[in-house]
């Protein structure tokens, strides 16, 4: 079934059209990567899906219902989870408090279990801002997963992570694919190729191509836009 759908989704900023009448479909259970050059409109698109950014035109449908007019917090309650491009955790609160807010309750076993999924359970008392950047990203993902979302939206999750951390991330996502549908924006082509079931390429606010990793890798238009698709861009 189609979990997420956008119809003619558009966003203008003054004279600039950042996202241009994008039709998009995401079936439940899929891992879907959104790629494209800088300024292609990926974060704006995903922001409109989650409700952070209001749409200039078009519709967003989630789980068979029109959520276009629904505020962001209501969409989250319907089953979306969202991680920011620049990590947004509560830097002055402990890891425990961070996850408790995501879980909406403070039962110790539940909070520790959620932290354990990303291997941070032993640090639950630490202050989030004191963590290394890579671990803060993991914390944010843990908070996303803790909500048990239908749709997990990740905006450039591996940015700023070291190689070993990226491997851990790939493993984590592989374990998650059974539980939730994942939509991620990524620049790292190795990650994309390893994880994605389907890739959509955005350029200048429009969908350039959409298909399996192999199809995208072979697509001439995509190659032109990237000047050599398949190379890692970190």
């Amino acid at each position, binding site marked *: 079934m189609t979990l997420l759908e956008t119809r003619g989704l558009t966003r203008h900023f003054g004279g600039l059209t950042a996202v241009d009448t994008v039709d998009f479909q995401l079936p439940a259970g899929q891992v879907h990567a959104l790629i494209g050059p800088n300024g292609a409109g990926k974060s704006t698109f995903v922001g409109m899906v*989650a409700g*952070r950014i209001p749409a200039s035109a078009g519709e967003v449908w989630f789980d068979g219902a029109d959520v276009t007019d629904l*505020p*962001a*917090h*209501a969409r*989250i*309650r319907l089953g979306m989870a*969202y991680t*920011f491009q620049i990590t*947004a*955790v*509560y*830097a*002055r*609160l402990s890891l425990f*408090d961070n996850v*408790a*807010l*995501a879980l*909406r*309750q*403070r039962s110790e076993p539940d909070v520790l279990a959620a932290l354990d999924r990303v291997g941070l359970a032993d640090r639950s008392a630490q202050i989030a801002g004191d963590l290394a950047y890579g671990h803060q990203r993991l914390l944010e993902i843990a*908070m996303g997963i803790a*909500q048990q979302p239908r749709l997990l939206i990740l905006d450039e999750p591996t940015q700023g992570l070291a190689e070993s951390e990226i491997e851990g991330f790939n493993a984590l996502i592989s374990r998650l694919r059974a539980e939730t549908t994942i939509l991620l924006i990524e620049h790292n082509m190795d990650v994309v190729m390893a994880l994605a079931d389907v890739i959509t390429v955005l350029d200048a606010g429009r969908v350039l191509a959409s298909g399996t990793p192999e199809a995208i890798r072979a697509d001439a238009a995509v190659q032109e836009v990237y000047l050599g698709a398949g190379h890692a861009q970190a």
Partner: protein
Amino acid sequence: MSGAKKSLLLHLGLIAILFALGFLLPVYHQGNLARILVLATYAIGYNVLFGYTGLLSLGHAMFFSAGMYGLGLAMHHGGVPAVPAFVIGVIASALLSAAVAVLALRTLGVAFMIVTLMFAQAGFLTILYFGAWTRGDEGFVLPQAVREVAGLDLTDPMTRYMTALLLFSAALLVTARMMQMRFGNVLVAVRENEERTTMLGYDVFKHKFVAVVISGTLSGAAGAAYGLLFGYVGATFASVQYSIFPLLWVLLGGAGTTIGPLVGAFFTFYLIDYASSLTSAYMLIVGLVLVLLILFARAGIMGEVRKRWAGWLP
């Protein structure tokens, strides 16, 4: 011992000490402390919005005075007895908070500060404009005869002190408990990172709205109590000064701590008491302390204590 238990013990211990002081202090200081306790209640109300939710209002005097004038006008013009008049004062401030919240919460940061300041100024000027009823700057006195509850004379120093302590204790325990509950946790989350909180599924506007109403109503209760216990209602309490005071008390005592408001109100009271014996320009001290606090000690007294020694401090 769990944090919640330590916290409860701390608060009950404090209340017990204050109770004892009611019997130990000489009348002059007992009267001062009664005043401080009511003003500390005002500060607790302000702390809910500023310390916990992170919204800096420059107009809380309108809530304080709404309570005071709600009670005062009801008693003075309507002959309403003390307890119903107090309820009227509280309701007046609650309604005003809701109305202000609906408008002011459409703004953020500096704009929010100015909007609250402007609303409060309009309130102050309105009190002056309708001087025929409010007696404006001069204000009016609530005679001893009406200031009694269930046969107890509120002008009697001990009764007055214990009533003030009752008000303060209720405010302290209620807000402390509130901050331990989910609602309180979300307020802190809103303060720390508003967008993150929205994207975790919380209705930030609703939380802020309730915070403003709770904050304004506590402030109004303090205002009504102040008029009732000390027998005077005047426009000064609606002026900018009385919006700056709670900011100063909370900053000095420690924003976002439960005891900070009392500590700040206490020190400021005696600081000004001392300064005004030296010069009529005692507000200079207020200005100086504000600048020094914002430069060097933004966490305030209890905030520093929490940072350095007692991380569990609520």
